[in-house]
């Protein structure tokens, strides 16, 4: 199905998104084209005619690719603030939980036994996961959160 591969490649050439998003988009497009081909084949068209029909009805790959890129590329200001700020805010809250105002620190066992610890840790995972609907973003934010948390709690020099 070289026509389909060619059309999909033309669409992909206009996109610069993360791999998972691109993969989903192209799978959807390929599915559409294969369905049109199958329908044409059921109407007794040969393979070449069916592929030509699918490609002609679909339109210009580059134009579709540009449209899809534009639909996915823009992150709003609020999204950027959440993505960048949430792990930091959660780590700071956790640091506040770990160090009392009088300067005394609680150990990891005590910290892990506090419900607030788990609420903050879950929020750091679930908010980006639900907001961006990509497990990768959720895990990335969570990794940053844990990195900062370990840094804040383990490294005494960073204590306020």
């Amino acid at each position, binding site marked *: 199905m070289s026509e389909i591969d060619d059309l999909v490649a033309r669409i992909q050439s206009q996109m610069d998104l993360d791999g998972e998003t691109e993969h989903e988009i192209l799978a959807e*497009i390929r*599915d559409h084209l294969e369905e049109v081909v199958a329908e044409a084949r059921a109407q007794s068209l040969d393979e070449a005619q069916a592929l030509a029909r699918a490609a002609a009805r*679909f339109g*210009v790959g580059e134009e579709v690719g540009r449209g899809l890129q534009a*639909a*996915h590329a*823009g992150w709003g200001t609020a999204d950027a603030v959440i993505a960048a700020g949430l792990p930091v805010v959660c780590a700071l809250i956790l640091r506040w939980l770990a160090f009392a105002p009088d300067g005394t620190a609680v150990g990891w066992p005590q910290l892990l036994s506090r419900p607030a610890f788990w609420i903050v840790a879950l929020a750091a995972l679930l908010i980006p996961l639900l907001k961006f609907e990509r497990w990768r973003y959720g895990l990335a934010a969570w990794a940053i959160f844990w990195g900062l948390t370990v840094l804040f709690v383990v490294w005494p020099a960073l204590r306020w």
Partner: protein
Amino acid sequence: MGVKEQMRKGTTSVILLNLLSELGRPMYGYEIIQELEARSQGSFRFKEGLIYPRLHELEQDGLLRSEWQGEEGTRRRKFYAITDKGRRTLAEELRDWHSFAQAVNRLLSLEATP
């Protein structure tokens, strides 16, 4: 973006929201195209690929939600359904559309009057 392109985008978006609202069930891209062609009795024809940027924009704006259906190894399809926000937006867009259409019709009638 030119006025014509903006009108095409806006009109397509309202038509998509309206279709998904009226039918009240999730639909996939090719199914939507077939339904639109059938409803317009062939007068609403466009390049099929151009529907996908509109669907993805509507999804990004929270007006549609999507879900992949189908087992691995079989044909998997991405189904779109209208959200509550999409229904509210559709209601606003239809109100605007009717007002605009009425205004244009009044103007055209005035122009046609000798």
